[in-house]
């Protein structure tokens, strides 16, 4: 069969592109950068696959994550996509809940959007430190059950957890609002110095050292009027 286009055999061609292809490719490019940034953070911060929850370590990891993501052009969908990738584990060989949560928090805090909504209820794993240092003006809505240290170091933002949280929720928070629609674990609000925590469900225990702020359970103030140590 004659190819009537033979004269253009050597002509450099470009494939037909529909806008969706371009968008998908751009998304993939961004996701590659984000994953690469995460792997770099893990490599720097996690020695022998052990990551100790220490104040300095957390700060260092957060600063490093913030620095890495500065040049990324991402949006909320990319953050949610990263959570799915971390959960699936296909392109990411290991999930370490602490650094991954800090990395996601850095992405949320640095995102262009003021309101960030992450649907995490289908995930098999949980991330720690989500909402870490959420700044003023940002609202983070997290759907699904969450790990430990949710809203830790909250810095004026509003975090709505539509599900239950693990231990140490709101630990060290300085300002802002943490709303938990279901239950909270132990040591909630430890080292908290400001802001408010609202829990609609049960609280297993609040922190021993709470320096300021308020904690409500079902609209009832339980700190500073804290009377019992266990619910």
């Amino acid at each position, binding site marked *: 069969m004659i190819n009537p*286009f033979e*004269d*253009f055999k050597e002509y450099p*061609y*470009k494939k037909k592109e529909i806008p969706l292809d371009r968008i998908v490719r751009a998304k993939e490019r961004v996701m590659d950068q984000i994953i690469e940034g995460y792997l770099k953070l893990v490599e720097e911060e996690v020695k022998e696959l052990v990551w100790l929850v220490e104040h300095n370590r957390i700060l260092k990891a957060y600063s490093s994550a913030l620095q890495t993501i500065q040049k990324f052009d991402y949006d909320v969908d990319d953050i949610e996509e990263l959570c799915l990738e971390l959960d699936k584990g296909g392109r990411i060989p290991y999930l370490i809940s602490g650094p991954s949560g800090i990395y996601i928090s850095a992405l949320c805090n640095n995102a262009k959007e003021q309101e960030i909504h992450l649907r995490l209820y289908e995930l098999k794993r949980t991330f720690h430190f989500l909402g870490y240092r959420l700044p003023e003006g940002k609202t983070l809505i997290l759907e699904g059950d969450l790990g430990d240290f949710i809203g830790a170091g909250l810095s004026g933002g509003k975090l709505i957890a539509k599900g239950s949280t693990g231990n140490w929720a709101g630990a060290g928070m300085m300002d802002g609002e943490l709303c938990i629609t279901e239950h909270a674990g132990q040591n909630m609000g430890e080292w908290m110095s400001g802001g408010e925590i609202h829990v609609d469900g049960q609280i297993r225990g609040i922190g021993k050292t709470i320096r300021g702020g308020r904690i409500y359970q079902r609209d009832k103030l339980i700190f500073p009027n804290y009377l019992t140590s266990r619910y």
Partner: protein
Amino acid sequence: MEDGNSRQKVRDIYGFIQDNLYLNRPDMRVAEESFNSALLFSLLTALNRGKELIIGEPGLGKTTSAEYIGAMTYRLPLGLIWAGEVSGHPEQTEEKIIGRPDLGRLNRGEEVVIWSYLAQLPIKIVDEINRLPETKQSMILDGVDRGKWEYLNDVIINEEYCLFATANYQDRGTNTLIAPLIDRFDVIVESRHPGTNMAFMIGMKDRYENVLRSAVFERRFQEILLQRRDYHEKMRGLEELCDRFGDHMEKEFHVRMLSQAERKEIRDCMQELPLDADANAFLRTVIAELSFCHKYGQKRSDEHCEEGCHYTGFLCHHTKNCISNRFPISVRTYSQSLAWLLGDEAVGIDHIKAVLPYALAHRVQWKDDYISQKQASNRRDPLQIYMGKEMVNEVYRRYNEQSHHIKNALAVAYQTLSGKGLEPIEGDHPIYAEIKRDLEEVR
């Protein structure tokens, strides 16, 4: 491979005729060079065995331009070319145009054909072709198209020939050229009035003296043509005499003409010249606009565009007929000839643009309303050539806007047909629809 001597020789022929025999103004520019279109296209016709229709007012050099070119490119004396010319008139007969029985031998019961000079000579000139009635025009169709001449049970086929036909503008004595005949002409040119001052100079020349005439050689040529022997043998004898005539002209008048071997060498060089990507894609774009029909699959003379067609902005909406397969052949061969003459290594878009108006002016049947839009415009060309030039500019503008996209569409189409699963490139031009259709029908 020729080394430029042949090209210089051809340029010298052009220059000699322009300066001494066919005085006229340049009327076209290609790559910074000016040419007279009638002379240039006659030269290219002779070089690549083409067919040219020359139109113009009586007495403005239609026939003489072809005669001079024919004489100098084929080493034939002018008087022989005159002898081979056929004039179109209503009483013209097959016996005068093609051949007649040898009456002496017919009386002895032998059917032997005496071929006309027109049928035998490589330079064929039909003067005032549109004075031939339409019924008689079909008589010369095969001869014009393939160089094949038939009479009684005999046939001769010309191996190398070119044809020039002249036509006056329509008057009471002219007929319309039938579509199959007119399509066989590669190009149409106008032999124009040379302008007041040049006409004055022509008027000062001796009307009987011409350097290309030689009574002695003319008689010798005629003796060969009248011999009763095999046509191909006669042609070999003729060629030997052509060489002697060429030597004589060079020695006596320093006029260098082309030998058969040189003509072949030139043709081989021309045919080797490739079309570059733009020339290729642009020609495809033109063909698409002149053959495409969104509604009926292709243009057909008896089918008309419907109202509200998406492609009303393209040429297919302004034409009645479908462009023939002879059209791209004409454009390619003449563009190659032109590129060769200019010393270029490939056929570019400028060569194609220069040739196109002359290759399509006689082939396109425009719709009446489109003609009425154009005919009152200020112009220097006859209407059909003017419309051809306008058309080329219009398509070129469209091509220029999307040349990369069109070339990409063609490249992607190649890859698709070669087995890569690519989607055809889409765009707003008939060429994309044609490419898509090629791909669909092959799949």
